[in-house]
């Protein structure tokens, strides 16, 4: 079937080219951190938009995820007489996995899509070209500030999520499962090792980078008018979500190797 093969050939070629373009795009977004001019105003504005704007959803997801972890684990742990370890279970799960990934996914849905649609509409209305014509590099003005502020803000949002998740677990343990609050917090606190925290706080740096670069990359490549903007937005959310989960796996594996040697 020469036709189908030809198609696969073309699709594969496009994918390889896109990955290559994306790598260059990422490299430039980082390299611009060390080049002038710098747009600190845009960094702050984006930090406000991405960071402060995402606090409510991060607070809610964090709290209820911690709560549901306590709810689900209490019964299983009780079977082994280990109910006292609820705090430990909740805080470890939150800090190592759930807070970074869930916060990443939430912010991805909200901001990767937002960036793709904003930059996409700028692209199709020639605003990006206008910016270049006026002597401004859109990579420096639009992409690097978004990348920097997403990385910093996702880091902080993950800490909020960690805290709220532990609090949510405490709330459920104390008020629904009638456990001892001091016991919960002691076990939650004692469980934390340097490796867990390092792992939990490294992940959001990568996820933030993925969210911003994928959102901007799909936005800047938008073609085909308003319809194209919708397409880029969806693609950005899907691709960044999948990448977050995939990279989470890689990072978890790498951290296990770094901290425990296997």
């Amino acid at each position: 079937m020469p036709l189908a093969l030809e198609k696969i050939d073309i699709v594969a070629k496009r994918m390889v080219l896109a990955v290559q373009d994306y790598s260059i795009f990422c490299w430039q977004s980082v390299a611009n951190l060390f080049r002038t001019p710098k747009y600190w105003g845009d960094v702050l504005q984006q930090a406000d938009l991405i960071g402060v704007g995402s606090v409510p959803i991060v607070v809610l997801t964090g709290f209820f995820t911690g709560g549901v972890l306590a709810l689900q684990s209490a019964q299983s742990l009780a079977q082994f007489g280990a109910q006292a370890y609820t705090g430990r279970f909740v805080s470890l799960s939150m800090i190592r996995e759930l807070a970074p990934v869930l916060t990443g996914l939430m912010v991805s849905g909200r901001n990767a899509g937002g960036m793709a649609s904003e930059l996409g509409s700028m692209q199709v209305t020639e605003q990006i070209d206008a910016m270049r014509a006026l002597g401004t590099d859109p990579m420096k003005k639009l992409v690097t500030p978004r990348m920097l502020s997403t990385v910093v803000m996702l880091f902080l949002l993950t800490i909020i999520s960690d805290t709220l998740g532990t609090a949510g677990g405490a709330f459920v343990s104390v008020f629904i499962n009638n456990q001892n609050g001091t016991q919960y917090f002691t076990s939650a606190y004692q469980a934390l090792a340097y490796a867990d925290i390092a792992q939990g706080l490294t992940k959001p740096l990568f996820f933030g980078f993925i969210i911003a670069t994928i959102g901007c990359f799909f936005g800047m490549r938008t073609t085909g008018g308003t319809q194209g903007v919708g397409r880029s937005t969806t693609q950005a959310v899907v691709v960044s979500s999948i990448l977050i989960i995939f990279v989470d796996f890689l990072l978890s594996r790498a951290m296990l190797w770094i901290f425990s040697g296997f």
Partner: protein
Amino acid sequence: MAYSVQFAHEPASAHGSSEPVVVFEHVSIGFNDLKVLKDVSFQVGPGETRILLGPAGVGKSVLLKLVNGLLRPDSGRILLFGEDITHMTERELFPLRTRTGMVFQEGALFDSLAVRDNVGYQLMERHKPVDEVDRRVRDSLRFVELEHTYDLLPASLSGGMRRRVAIARAIIDQPDLILYDSPTGGLDPITSTTIIELVVKERDVLGTPSLLVTHRLQDAFTMVTHRFDQTQNKMVPLPHGQINAKTSFLVLHDGKLIFDGTTAELITSQDPFIKEFLA
């Protein structure tokens, strides 16, 4: 008139020598399998206004974007202000681009910025003092007679007003070349005339060389048969039989430049496509 003093500068020929502002030598460009421009060569001389005619989708916008390096040719050579930009990096192009004013098809104003910040964008990028930016933005807006839109957002402007703000943004730093991409596209005839009046005013008052793209013949003929009268502050017809000698034509058809010459040559052309286009 206020702006004629503030904008006062020598006609563009004084900036460089008498060398052409734009030179295209055998330029070709395509996207994927689509060949858009094939072997296009022409020049824009100092003080000249060149009108590029052609049907929709023929590659007029593409040609304009090649001039200031927003797109790169597949082959051929492009010179801007005497410098070969064909293989320049984006970074090397920026200083040349800031000497060029570009008016995009739909205006391409930044949605998120007020008119003042749109028009003053270049100056703000160069960290000019706030009061200087304010003053020059007002001068530029006065030129297009839209001073009252200073604080407005682009979304609250009509299509015609947006084009005028785009013109104000393009001319604020006294460019050495202006590129107009279909400045009257999609506008009603009356609004179109006000835009063409501004283009003529730019040509006759400031004397900047320009390349203007249009698919509307009407606009082109208004430009060659009118001049801007500064004492009356409006566009007036030239005496019967006279045409503007500095304004000449290019015609693009099917990716090729099929005409490059004066108004008289255009009208008397025997090319079947041009005859039909003019009909």
